[in-house]
């Protein structure tokens, strides 16, 4: 029996910088998770992943990550994805510092 589809966002790393980014509904790559398009339909998710994967000069390693709706947009549901939104926790020198 196939598993029930859960909401996703498309995420990847920028080819040149390596930074974590998220695909928005208007086809931008945002560094902010909450700006990502929250995808609730499996077929649409596959289409968006194909769209992302085709952007070979912009991003690397696009994949679908679990997410949920939050007060200000999509939020990650797994701690790995939560770390990817803000950077390393040992010093405030990753994404969390760059995005301030």
């Amino acid at each position, binding site marked *: 029996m196939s598993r029930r589809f859960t909401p996703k966002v498309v995420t990847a790393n920028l080819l*040149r910088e390596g930074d974590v980014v998220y695909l928005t509904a208007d086809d931008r790559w945002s560094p902010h998770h909450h700006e990502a398009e929250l995808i609730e339909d499996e077929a649409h998710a596959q289409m968006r992943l194909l769209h992302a994967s085709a952007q070979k000069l912009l991003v690397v390693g696009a994949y679908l990550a679990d997410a949920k709706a939050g007060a200000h947009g999509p939020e990650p549901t797994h701690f*790995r994805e939560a*770390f990817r939104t803000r950077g390393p*926790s*040992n010093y405030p020198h990753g994404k969390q510092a760059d995005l301030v």
Partner: protein
Amino acid sequence: MYSYSDFDEAFVRARVAQFTQQVERRLDGSLTEEEFRPLRLMNGLYLQLHAYMLRVAIPYGSLNPGQMRQLAHIADTWDKGYGHFTTRQNIQFNWPKLPDVPAILQALADVEMHAIQTSGNCVRNVTADHFAGAAADEIADPRPYAELLRQWSTDHPEFQFLPRKFKIAITGSPNDRAVTRAHDIGLRMVRNAAGQPGFEVMVGGGLGRTPMIGVTVREFLPEADLLPYVEAVLSVYNTLGRRDNKYKARIKITVHETGAEEITRMIEARFAELRPLFGGNDQKLLADIREAFAPPAFRNAPTDAYDAFHSADPVFRAWADTNLTAHRNAQYAIVTISLKAHGETPGDATSAQMRLMADLAEKYGHSDLRISHEQNVILPHVHKSDLPTLHAALMQAGLATANVGLLSDIIACPGMDYCALATARSIPVAQELATHFEALKLEHEIGPLKIKISGCINACGHHHVGHIGILGLDRAGVENYQITLGGDGTETAVIGDKTGPGFAYTEIVPAIERILRAYLALRLEPSETFLQAFRRVGMDPFKVALYETEGAQDAA
């Protein structure tokens, strides 16, 4: 220390030029990511969780001050002002941008460094005892052998596509400070009955998901036979190693599946074929390399200043008692600079700290620096009369933490704060453990202790051979930490035993405290170390302390 030959220089420059073109072709779309990925990995460039990561080799952990300063320059120019020294005597830069990597490799080549073979299924950076050429207990300096192995293995046409990565460690002392028994090949220098130096050769050690201690395939290998014998081991592995399953591809599985006796027979048979082919050129090369590792001109001077400071200054004494090791010259000491200040990331050094260590090595350390697999920096030759001044300079830079060999001298892999493979964080656990026990003022009371933390089953933090090992895992979407006890990475190496169910992130530091309070209660006397006590009483009292204490939480 070894300087590049014309061949080395040309080889490294050619690789930089080649990779520069490959990066350009990736950026203009001529190469796909699928085509580019193996090429970047062959040059030490990974794509990690948050950014690219460049792993730079520090062969057998040796650096000169100019190289250390260049690492600082790279950190400032193309990274975030720091570097991370790893458990395999590499340095990793966590934030390079892809278009900058060719310039970084060029800067490395300018000081005879590179990132070649720091990734991929090839012979990785050959590691060695970080006290090489200085230790009082040494039979012979292992660095010339390590350099010989480096030259032989670099771009070796037969061994660029092994079944899996291959790690060699070498120690020139019978006391193993290079974790040789947990490497694919471990070489431990010993003497035979006639007093001649040679190597005990161990094969098939390794940590990761199937931790194993290497088996001894030769009790005594004459030093002149080193290269053909290592080639024989690689040759047998290249033939037998499993390429059908990456989880069974390391030589430890080959040794296990083939049997120690049979694999020894095969290695010896291959060695018999290979040995005549070497014809002595390797020994001529080794003799040349040895000249580069001639001991420095040791100074003959009184050590009264050291003795006076040691008696009068308790801060200096505490540092000297933990961070100094006996040198072969009684007027000298081996200094370990701790990169484990309480609450800091194990193995990280800022560019300012790197420059200071380079300056100090130049002024007081015969221009020699080492990186230990325990993620510290070593000045192997410091005259005792210079130690008070050196200590004062280290204090000013926050580099005089007196904790080498103690609880907070923790090995920790990058974990999920950086690594794409990690399943949990390891650095914050190390940071919390260090600050927690610093606040309790128990570190010196507990005494010698090796805590090692890995953020995934690949065990880069060597947790299996920690007296206390911590393994971070993902259990149903939550960070969970398993504890092992009784591991040992020395010449008496043993894999630690799992205590039982793991602990949640918030529970791991209290759990370690329960173990250590149990140790303090049951040790026979203060001189009985944690490992000795564990070996005497076994696991049970620690399990009781861990799991039968009110408030203990099984998060598994």
